[in-house]
C-alpha cells in the first residue's frame, strides 16, 4: 500500500519553509503599501481621471522608409497628410456633427452612413477617420467651423508618395490598406494600417515599415488634448538604396518612348539592375489612394496591358538574339569549326516545309562569324539539322533561359525552353526535327522575358551569371548600414574561353562593322557588342509584308541585346519593342544606343574614379 521510499521531513526543510513564508508575507505587505498609495493617497486624483475617461491612446504612425537610387536621389518618399477624425463620445450630438461634416466636406449620405456604422463597432473613445488626406480648402473649412463640429479634429499621418510617377512603378510596387488576411497573419498590424502589396514595397516591407509609436494623452471634457502623459516614440522605417541609376533610367525611358515594350540594363559583373523600364505603366500614387472600380476596369481592359509587368512576365520569342546561344553550343560541341562555311540561298527545304532566310536573295557562303554579324537564318537552320534539341536546351539553360532569374519580385515567369521531355509532357507528342529549325532562330516554342535576355547577354559578356537584384543596401534613418547586398553568382559557364572569344568577336562586329545588323547601336567612345532580333508574332505567310500593311497587334517585336565596353563589360542591356515598325536592327538597336550613350556620358561626366567608387558604395551623403 504505502510506498517504500517514505522519509521523514528533514529539520532543515522545515527551517527553510519558514524563510519562504516570511518572504511571501513581506511580498503581501508590499502590495498593501502599494494599494495604500494608489487608493488612499492618490485616490482623489485617480478618481478625477477616471470620471471622464480622460486618458486617451493616440497611435503615432511610423514614417515609412525612403527609397533612394544608387546616387542618393529620392525615388519614394513619405509626405505628411491631414486626416479628419472624429471621436463620437466627444460629440454632444453625433447625428448633428456628422450632418454638418457631410455638408462641409460634400460627402454623400452613403459615406455618412459608413462613418456612423464605424462609430458603433469600435472600442470606446477611439477615433474614426472621417476623411483621409483632406485638402487645403477642406482644412480651412473644418478649422473655421470647429464650434459646429464637436469631437472632430485633424491629425497628421505620413502618406506614401511616388514623386517619379510611372518610373520604376512595377519594381517599386505600391502600398495600400492591410487586408483581413494580412491582419490575421501578423499581430503587429492594425485595421487601417498601410502595407506593401507588391514589388519592393512588399519584399522589403519589414525594413521599410518602422515601428509605430504612441501617446497617452490627457484630454479635457470635450476631448481636447491637455498634455502628453507618456510617449513611445515611433521608429521611422529604414532607407533602402536601389542599384538603379535614375539618370540611366531616364535615358532608357526616353529611348523606349511611348512604344510598348521593356528595357532592362544591368551590371554583368554583379547582376545589379541599372535601369528597368516597362511601358505602358501605371502610377502607384493612384493605388496609394485606393483605386476606383472604373479605374481598375479601365486598366484591366486596356489593349496595351499596363498592368503586365513586361520585364519579368512578358514571354516573347527571342528571335535572332537566340543565335549567340546557338553559336556557342555549335562550336563548343564541335559540330562546326570557325571556318565551316554554309551556303545561304535565301532558304532551305526541310521535311516538306520551306524555311526562309530574312534576306530574300540569301547571304551566299557564310561562316559562323558572318552568320552572326548578318544574322543569317539559313546558317542556323543547317546547324539545327546537326543538333539535338536537348543539347540546345542545355545551353539555353546555362544562359539562364527557361528558369526564373531569381529576382526578388513576385510572379516572375520562366519563359519556355523546349526539349523532348517538355514536348511529351505538354503535348504528349514526340519532338519533330523540323521544330528544331524554328528553335534555332529563336522562334517556335522558345520564349524568354526581357530580364532573362539581359541576364543571358550579361552571361555571354563575363562568363558568369548573377542573380539580378535591385537593392544595394538597407540603412537606418541615421545612415547606419544594416544590410549590404552583394553579387550572388548563380552559374559559371562551362565553356572554353576560345569559344566565348569567337562568339564575342562576332557580336562585336554585329555593331562595329557596317555589314552588322546592329550598327545603329554603335558609340563613338566605346566598343559595343550585341545581337539583333525580330520575333514573329504570327506565322510567316508566303510573302513578307511591310509593317504598315499588317494590323498593329500582328506586327513583329524588335529585340536588341548588347553589352559594352567589349573588352571590359560594365553594362548589359536588353530591349524589346512590341509590334514595332521594323526589325531589331532598325528599331531596338537605336534605343539601346541611347541607353549606352547616356551611361558612358554619365560615367565620363562623373569622373571614372568617382563613379567606380559609387559603384562599390552608395552611402555617401546626399
Amino acid at each position, binding site marked *: 500500500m504505502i510506498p517504500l521510499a517514505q*522519509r521523514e521531513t528533514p529539520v532543515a526543510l522545515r527551517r527553510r519553509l519558514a524563510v519562504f513564508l516570511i518572504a511571501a508575507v513581506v511580498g503581501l505587505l508590499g502590495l498593501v503599501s502599494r494599494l495604500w498609495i494608489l487608493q*488612499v493617497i492618490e485616490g482623489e486624483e485617480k478618481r478625477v481621471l477616471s470620471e471622464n475617461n480622460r*486618458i486617451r491612446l493616440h497611435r503615432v504612425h511610423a514614417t515609412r522608409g525612403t527609397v533612394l537610387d544608387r546616387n542618393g536621389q529620392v525615388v519614394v518618399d513619405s509626405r505628411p497628410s491631414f486626416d479628419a477624425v472624429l471621436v463620437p463620445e466627444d460629440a454632444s450630438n453625433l447625428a448633428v456633427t456628422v450632418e454638418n461634416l457631410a455638408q462641409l466636406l460634400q460627402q454623400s449620405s452613403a459615406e455618412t452612413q459608413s462613418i456612423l456604422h464605424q462609430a458603433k463597432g469600435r472600442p470606446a473613445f477611439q477615433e474614426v477617420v472621417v476623411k483621409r488626406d483632406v485638402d487645403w480648402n477642406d482644412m480651412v473649412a473644418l478649422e473655421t467651423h470647429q464650434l459646429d463640429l464637436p469631437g472632430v479634429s485633424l491629425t497628421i499621418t505620413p502618406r506614401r508618395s511616388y514623386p517619379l510617377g510611372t518610373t520604376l512603378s512595377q519594381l517599386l510596387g505600391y502600398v495600400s490598406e492591410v487586408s483581413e488576411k494580412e491582419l490575421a497573419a501578423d499581430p503587429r498590424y492594425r485595421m487601417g494600417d498601410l502595407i506593401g502589396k507588391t514589388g519592393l514595397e512588399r519584399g522589403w516591407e519589414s525594413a521599410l515599415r518602422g515601428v509605430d509609436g504612441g501617446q497617452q494623452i490627457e484630454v479635457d471634457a470635450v476631448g481636447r488634448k491637455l498634455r502628453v502623459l507618456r510617449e513611445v516614440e515611433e521608429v521611422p522605417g529604414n532607407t533602402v538604396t536601389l542599384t538603379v541609376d535614375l539618370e540611366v533610367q531616364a535615358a532608357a525611358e526616353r529611348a523606349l518612348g511611348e512604344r510598348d515594350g521593356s528595357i532592362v540594363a544591368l551590371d554583368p559583373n554583379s547582376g545589379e539592375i541599372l535601369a528597368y523600364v516597362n511601358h505602358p505603366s501605371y502610377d502607384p500614387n493612384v493605388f496609394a489612394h485606393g483605386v476606383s472600380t472604373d479605374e481598375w476596369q479601365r486598366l484591366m481592359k486596356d489593349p496595351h496591358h499596363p498592368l503586365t509587368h513586361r520585364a519579368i512576365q512578358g514571354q516573347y520569342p527571342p528571335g535572332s538574339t537566340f543565335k549567340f546561344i546557338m553559336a556557342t553550343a555549335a562550336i563548343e560541341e564541335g559540330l562546326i569549326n570557325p571556318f565551316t562555311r554554309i551556303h545561304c540561298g535565301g532558304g532551305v527545304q526541310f521535311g516538306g516545309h520551306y524555311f526562309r532566310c530574312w534576306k530574300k536573295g540569301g547571304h551566299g557562303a557564310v561562316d559562323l562569324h558572318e552568320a552572326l554579324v548578318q544574322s543569317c537564318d539559313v546558317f542556323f537552320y543547317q546547324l539545327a539539322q546537326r543538333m539535338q534539341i536537348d543539347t540546345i536546351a542545355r545551353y539555353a539553360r546555362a544562359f539562364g533561359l527557361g528558369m526564373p532569374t531569381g529576382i526578388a519580385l513576385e510572379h516572375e515567369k520562366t519563359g519556355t525552353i523546349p526539349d523532348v521531355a517538355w514536348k511529351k509532357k505538354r503535348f504528349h507528342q514526340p519532338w519533330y526535327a523540323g521544330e528544331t529549325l524554328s528553335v534555332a532562330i529563336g522562334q517556335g516554342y522558345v520564349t524568354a522575358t526581357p530580364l532573362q535576355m539581359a541576364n543571358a547577354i550579361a552571361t555571354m559578356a563575363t562568363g558568369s551569371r548573377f542573380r539580378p537584384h535591385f537593392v544595394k543596401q538597407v540603412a537606418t534613418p541615421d545612415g547606419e548600414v544594416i544590410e549590404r547586398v552583394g553579387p550572388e553568382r548563380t552559374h559559371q559557364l562551362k565553356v572554353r574561353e576560345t569559344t566565348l572569344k569567337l562568339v564575342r568577336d562576332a557580336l562585336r562586329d554585329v555593331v562595329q562593322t557596317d555589314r552588322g545588323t546592329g550598327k545603329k547601336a554603335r558609340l563613338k567612345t566605346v566598343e559595343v557588342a550585341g545581337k539583333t532580333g525580330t520575333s514573329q508574332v504570327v506565322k510567316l505567310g508566303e510573302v513578307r509584308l511591310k509593317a504598315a500593311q499588317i494590323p498593329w497587334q500582328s506586327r513583329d517585336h524588335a529585340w536588341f541585346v548588347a553589352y559594352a565596353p567589349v573588352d571590359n563589360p560594365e553594362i548589359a542591356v536588353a530591349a524589346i519593342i512590341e509590334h514595332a515598325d521594323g526589325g531589331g536592327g532598325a528599331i531596338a538597336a537605336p534605343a539601346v544606343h541611347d541607353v549606352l550613350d547616356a551611361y558612358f556620358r554619365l560615367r565620363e561626366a562623373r569622373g571614372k574614379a568617382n563613379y567606380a567608387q559609387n559603384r562599390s558604395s552608395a552611402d555617401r551623403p546626399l
Partner: protein
Amino acid sequence: MLKIDRRLIVHFDWTLLLIVLLIIGCGITTVLSATHSAARPVSSSVVRQLAWAGVGLLAMLATLSFDYRRLESWAYVIYAGALLLLILVPVLGAVGGGSRRWLALGPASLQPSEFIKLALVVALARWLHRMTGDQSLPIRALIVPLALFLPAGLLILRQPDLGTAMVLGLTVASLVLLAGFRVRYVLIALAVIAPALPFVWSHLKPYQKQRLTTFLDPMADPLGAGYHVIQSEIAIGSGQVWGKGFLHGTQSKLNFLPEQHTDFIFSVFAEEWGFIGAMVMLTLYLALLLRCFMVATRAKDAFGTLLAFGITATIFWQVLINLGMATGSLPVVGITLPFVSYGGSSLLALMIGIGLLMNIGMRRFTF
C-alpha cells in the same frame, strides 16, 4: 466507490475549503461585474465559471480518495501525460488573442499549460524528496529538475505565454532552493549573469532589441502594455477607501481595461470595493498562505512537504505577480489571479491542487 477512512473525515480541512470558497466567491462576483451589461446582467462567463467551480469541487473531492503517496510512483507518468497535452497544442490547438494555448475538448477547451504546473510540481517532489536532507545538495542534483522544466518551459514560451513560463520557472527555483540547493550557488550565478545583461542589452542595435523582444513576446506592444498599466492604476486608485460599489465601476464598464475578467480582474475588484475590499481579499490570500504552509510543515514525509510547498509556491507566485502587475509595480506579463480570474482550466487545476493539499493534511497521522 470511494472508500474513505472515518478518521480521515475527522481530519478534513474545513478551514482551507472555506477560505478557497470565499476567494472563488469574490472571483465570480467580480467576473459578473466585469462582464455585466444592461442587456445581459449575468453573462455566460459567470455561468461557465460557476460550472467550472462545481467541476473543480468534485475533482478536489476525488483527489482525496487516494493516498497522495501513491503519486510518487505515478509522478513521471503524470508529467509525461501533461507534457504530451502541451505538445499537442501547437499541432491541434486553437488560437486565441494571438497565441495558441488551448485544446478543444467538446464544448469546453482545455489549457494544458495550467495542468503542467501541477504535474511538474509532482515530478519535482518525487525527484527531490529522495535527495533532500540536512546537507546541501550538490550542483549536479540540479540536472534532473532542469531537464524536467526546460521542455515544458520552452513549449509554453513558444505559445507565447511569457507569464506562465515565468511562474513555472519560479516554482522550480523555489522547490529546488527549499530542497537544499545551496543559496550560494544561486547567488553566484545571479551575480555573474545580472551585471552582464544590461551591458549586452545596451550594445545591441535597436533592430536587434526589437527582434529579441518580439521573440520573447510577439504580442509586445510597449505602448499598449503601458496603457494598460495606467488604466489599471486609475481604476484601482479611483476606488479610494470604500470603493464605487458593486457594478458601479466606471473604468471597467467602458472597456478601458483589457482582459478585465482575466489578467486585470483585480483592477475591477479594487475599483468597486476600494481599499477595504482589497484588504479583505489580501487577508483571504494571507489566510490561504498560512494554511498551506501549515500543511507543508506538518506533512508526514518529505514528499508531502515538497508537494505541498510546490503547489503553494505556484499559487503565490501568481498572486504576487498578478497583483504587482495590476498595481503597476511589476511589468505586464499575462498571468491570471488564482481562484479569481475567469478561466476553467486554471480553476480546475487549482482545485485539484487544493485537493492534494487537503490530502496531505488529512493523512499526516496515517502510516
